[in-house]
């Protein structure tokens, strides 16, 4: 009962380790896997776990967006691309050994630097007390939305802030991003379009066009040919046929 009765303040750590381990583990999966489809699958899991970390850090809206846009949208697109180019030769592609060596050295040193930076600053590595009410407030998405329209709810108290003039916030970047997305949409559609008709259109589908064309013309001819005959079918060689007698 003693063990049970312990109040346990380590929930955050517990879930952090789970999510961080899966994110990093599947990140390694992406790196080490040769099969491009499996890479995509591992990437899904890695990014999903990252979304979990976002939730843990209190950024619920960003986490949900990560799941929705990144995992649900971008990666589906990516897998689509994988499948479109998935020929036997390209699914498994070995990396050159010298690339491995070089990348490991550079990557390892970069990791060292980054980790050193991450743990180097005392301000970052010392845990702080948590203010419940403020935490809950950050979880709300409305301030985010308002910030995108130029209203900074969290900086209300700041005197002399540009908020007063309605200039702060992220209205401008928001508009730039929306125009950017529009440009990307058009650009991607334009780029992926082949300039010349693909071979599929060249022969087979145009055959279908041709057939329809033929049909249209045939039906014109048919009008002369079709006429309603009410008499019964007869052998053309029937000597008793009155038609043959004249």
């Amino acid at each position, binding site marked *: *009962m003693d063990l*049970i*009765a*312990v*109040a*346990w303040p380590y*929930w955050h750590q517990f879930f952090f380790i789970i999510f961080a381990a899966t994110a990093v583990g599947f990140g390694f999966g992406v790196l080490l896997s040769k*099969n491009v*489809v*499996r890479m995509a*699958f591992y990437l*899904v899991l890695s990014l*999903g776990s990252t979304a979990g970390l976002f*939730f843990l850090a209190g950024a*619920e*809206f960003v*986490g*949900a*967006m990560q*799941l*929705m846009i990144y*995992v*649900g*949208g971008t*990666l*589906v*697109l990516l*897998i*689509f691309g994988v*499948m479109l180019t*998935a020929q036997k030769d390209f699914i498994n592609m070995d990396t050159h050994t010298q690339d491995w060596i070089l990348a490991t050295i550079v990557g390892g040193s970069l990791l060292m630097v980054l980790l050193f930076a991450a743990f180097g600053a005392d301000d970052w590595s010392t845990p702080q007390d948590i203010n419940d*009410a403020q935490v*809950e*407030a950050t*979880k*709300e*998405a*409305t*301030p985010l939305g*308002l910030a995108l329209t130029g*209203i900074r*709810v969290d900086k*209300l108290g700041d005197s002399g802030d540009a908020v007063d003039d*309605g200039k702060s916030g992220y209205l401008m970047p928001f508009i730039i991003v929306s125009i950017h997305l529009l440009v990307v949409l058009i650009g991607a559609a334009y780029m992926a379009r082949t300039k010349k008709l693909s071979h599929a259109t060249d022969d087979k589908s145009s055959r279908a066009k041709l057939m329809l064309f033929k049909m249209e013309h045939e039906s014109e001819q048919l009008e002369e040919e079709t006429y309603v005959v009410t008499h019964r079918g007869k052998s053309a060689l029937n000597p008793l046929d009155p038609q043959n007698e004249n």
Partner: protein
Amino acid sequence: MADFVNYILNIEGSWFGYVVAALVAAVLILHVVAVGALLFIWMERKISGRIQDRLGPTRVGGKFGWLQTLADGIKLIAKEDVTPDLADKFLFKIAPYVGLAASYAAFIALPFADGVVGLHINTAVFFVLAVLGLEVFSVILAGYASGSKWSLFGAMREAAQVVSYEVPLGMCVVVPVMICGTMNLTTIANMQAGFLTNWLVFNDPFTFLTAIVYFTCATAGVNRAPFDLAEAESELVAGFHTEYSGLRWSLFFMAEYSSMFIVSALASILFFGGPHGPIPVTEILGFAGDSLGNPGMEAFSEETAKNDGFFAATQFGLILSRIIGVVNLLIKGCIGVTVMMWVRWSFPRLRIDQVMTMCLKYCVPLAAIGFLGATTWQALDLPTGTTLTGSHRYEYHELWTAGLKDKVLLDQDETADSSEAPIPHENDTQTEVNKVPLKTVPVSVLKGGER
């Protein structure tokens, strides 16, 4: 829940209560997924039977063939689990679990009634949609890994279809979010408490349109007829699950049926009042006591238990009203599922280009019209369904915020009159926000609900 367990065991603030509460919640949700799938498959067979002028299952388990699906499930478990030679073995085996996990995880944020929810997430609407969207991976992986051309066809169709339909679906979901000013499903549901006319679907003509578009897109999103191209049996044999057998095959169906329920339940929360019935019976009969004013309150309060004893702490009226709420939501979800079944057994299947045309030419513009129209309606402050019966939607919401009012007023200047407490979200102007920044936090999260 956690407090309750800890109180009974007399261990305060222990981890044990949380684990028990989590397990109970997980098992309950698992029941919605598994038992729900059993029920829905049985329902599908019965309903399709009735539509087709036959009886459906009649023997197993008594009069109505209640246990037919269970018997089939046992048969499926006993079946050999075949993996094709050409399959990518690892992905082939894992694919069904991905789908089931996705539709199971979406239940985390789905409130069955006020406070009856796995986890309060302020962005619950998007969380549910996002997690549900992950289900497409299972189909894609299954289709790719099967090593069958038919499966690959199914996977490609599914990928194209789901990615496209997420656009209008998201646009439709934004409408109730915009009207209620929150993405918290509990709050959205509670805002529709009261009479039928408070439901968002009757808010204005555009929400009505949006509700219809939402349901259409949701049907397409969960791959149900007439949009079930990924498993079109007359064209693709069985689409992405052609090569599956036994338990893995049945996992796909569990995922399909539970996601059908989720989108229906989401529709009912967003547009059809969620856990609130057409007539607020519990409020009228007074089960909930003053819970209408504070329904987000814990059904069990440790504080009260300490002072006034166990039974005083357990508000039976509130528990009862919550149970009724859960039943309401389940019934509404089942109605949505039934409509999907009805559609499935009545219509032929669309062709892939027609499905895409439907999305891009009809659903997206209609959703856009619905969104713009609903926005305009709100902006112009035109009469809504709530004004018809005179019961204002925000009336209830205002009462719920009452608990927080003192706190807010402390932060604010003293001129704020308690008789005209600011109504949140209705006038989202800068000045209002300036006045009541904390008002934007849904009270039910702060005050009630399982933490």
